[in-house]
């Protein structure tokens, strides 16, 4: 099978990328491993989606259906229940693909967009001490069991980590009749959106234990009890702060990691913080013709931001296929100071910098008030004030080509303003 563009993953990112890449001269194929398009949006039955893109508040399935309806109208080819198992690159990409219906087969593609989302960190990733009973699982898995399959995974729940999925599941399990005894967060601040603290925890009087973590797990077969302890500034448990909770389930909301292991063999440049590829403003990796967007590139707070980013990646892939481009000479990394954890895109191709670029980034600590400065060649070319910054909330800043002084590297500086 020969295609111009293969998009791996038919969720929020893949659908938006497919819509914008669509062109009469380009053969696109979307590969989705589930039995339906829409990805993780299908299990996110809560509302809060679409406020940026559609200017109205939608649930996850509704948000997905807007994109699916458009996608189906365009007659773009797609395969469901199909998994990509291997990728090679010579001049073109050679994908080895597997499905129950068609067995193992190969697809050649001029360009690939990786929009395969992210996976949840598990108990093994954070090494929780204690016994190994059943009843300990990532919050997103519990969400899938409950919202898609109709199974409530437990009756007495504790949640470790205050990421958004954990908070959403605290409410969801409560609504379904489970008792959520608390949420522990090792950091001194919440890792979820503040609106989720309000409407998922405060609404149901679920306590949030900041600077606490789980230090023991008991249970022979099923989970019986967990112990939480306060931690000091070095995250070491403090003696005599133990609290025990008799629970049958511990949900983990301890972080998401971009799922790009499929492409490990391609050896592209990586970002140690995002745990994904380094990309330029076209969301193209150091492997020519390989684009990455959505949660496979860096973990987003909002599906709306995934869609916006993925549309750009789709457009870039379209241009890549239709035009042959000159190799660029002026590619520089974006520099940033220690108040910023990471910036995406990591690189700017100055030879092809037209209009503007959205820089997405996260701050490294909570700040009440701060000023962003974009610097080039020793000059401040743009500033922006911001309030209530937190690592849990992604920030964006728009860099316009007209503000550039020359083609020297850009740096993004965040200065805290102490009031």
């Amino acid at each position, binding site marked *: 099978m020969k295609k111009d563009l293969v998009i791996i993953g038919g969720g929020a990112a893949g659908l938006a990328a497919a819509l914008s890449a669509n062109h009469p001269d380009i053969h696109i194929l979307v590969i989705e491993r589930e039995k339906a398009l829409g990805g993780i949006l299908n299990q996110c*039955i809560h509302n*809060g989606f679409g406020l940026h893109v559609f200017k109205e508040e939608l649930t996850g399935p509704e948000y997905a259906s807007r994109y699916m309806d458009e996608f189906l109208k365009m007659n773009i080819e797609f395969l469901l229940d199909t998994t990509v198992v291997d990728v090679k690159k010579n001049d073109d990409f050679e994908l080895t693909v597997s499905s129950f219906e068609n067995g193992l087969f190969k697809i050649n593609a001029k360009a690939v967009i990786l929009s395969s989302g992210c996976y949840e960190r598990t108990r093994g990733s954070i090494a929780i001490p204690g016994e190994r009973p059943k009843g300990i699982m990532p919050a997103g898995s519990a969400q899938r069991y409950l*919202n898609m399959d109709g199974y409530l995974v437990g009756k007495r729940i504790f949640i470790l980590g205050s990421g958004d999925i954990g908070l959403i599941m605290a409410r969801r399990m409560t609504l379904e009749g489970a008792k959520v005894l608390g949420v522990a967060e090792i950091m001194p601040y919440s890792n979820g959106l*503040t609106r989720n603290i309000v409407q998922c925890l405060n609404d149901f009087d679920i306590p949030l234990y900041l600077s606490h973590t789980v230090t023991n797990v008991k249970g022979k077969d099923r989970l019986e009890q967990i112990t939480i302890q306060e931690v000091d500034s070095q995250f070491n448990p403090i003696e005599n702060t133990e609290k025990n909770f008799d629970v049958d389930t511990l949900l983990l909301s301890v972080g998401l990691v971009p799922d790009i292991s499929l492409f490990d063999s391609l050896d592209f440049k990586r970002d140690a913080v995002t745990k994904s590829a380094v990309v330029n403003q076209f969301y193209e990796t150091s492997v020519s013709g390989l684009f990455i967007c959505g949660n496979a590139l860096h973990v987003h707070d909002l599906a709306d931001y995934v869609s916006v980013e993925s549309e750009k990646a789709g457009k870039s892939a379209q241009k890549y296929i239709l035009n042959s481009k000159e190799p660029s000479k002026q590619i520089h990394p974006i520099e940033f100071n220690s108040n910023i954890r990471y910036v995406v895109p990591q690189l700017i191709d100055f030879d092809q910098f037209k209009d503007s670029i959205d820089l997405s980034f996260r701050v490294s600590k909570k700040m009440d008030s701060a000023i962003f400065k974009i610097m080039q060649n020793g000059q401040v070319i743009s500033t922006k004030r911001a309030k*209530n910054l937190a690592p849990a909330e992604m920030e964006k800043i728009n860099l316009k080509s007209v503000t550039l002084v020359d083609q020297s590297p850009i740096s993004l500086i965040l200065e805290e303003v102490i009031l």
Partner: protein
Amino acid sequence: MTKMICIACPVGCHLLVDDEMHVSGNKCMRGEKYAIEEMTHPTRILTTTVKTTSLLTPRLSVKTKDPIPKELIFEALQLLEGIIIDNDVKIGDVVIPNILNTGIDMVATKSVTINPFH
């Protein structure tokens, strides 16, 4: 003075409401509406699922079309417990009209084909 965080959208503005119900700190009009409602009669959109007889899609996701009073949420869930969807449903279809006499409909948030092989 009451401090609160707006939940009208993911921005999460920090709001201040004074004794005369003047709202500040909001970046848009939704924030003012939210703060006054929260002080007088808090409401929430309820999202949950109901049972279906479909093998591929055993749960249908639903929501209240508009926010309902916060204190009615568990009563509304109880009502939904007894519902079994055995006919095809399109996104936006009313699953329960005028839930608990609130004037607000419970609607499907996805489409379900009960037997896709027919």
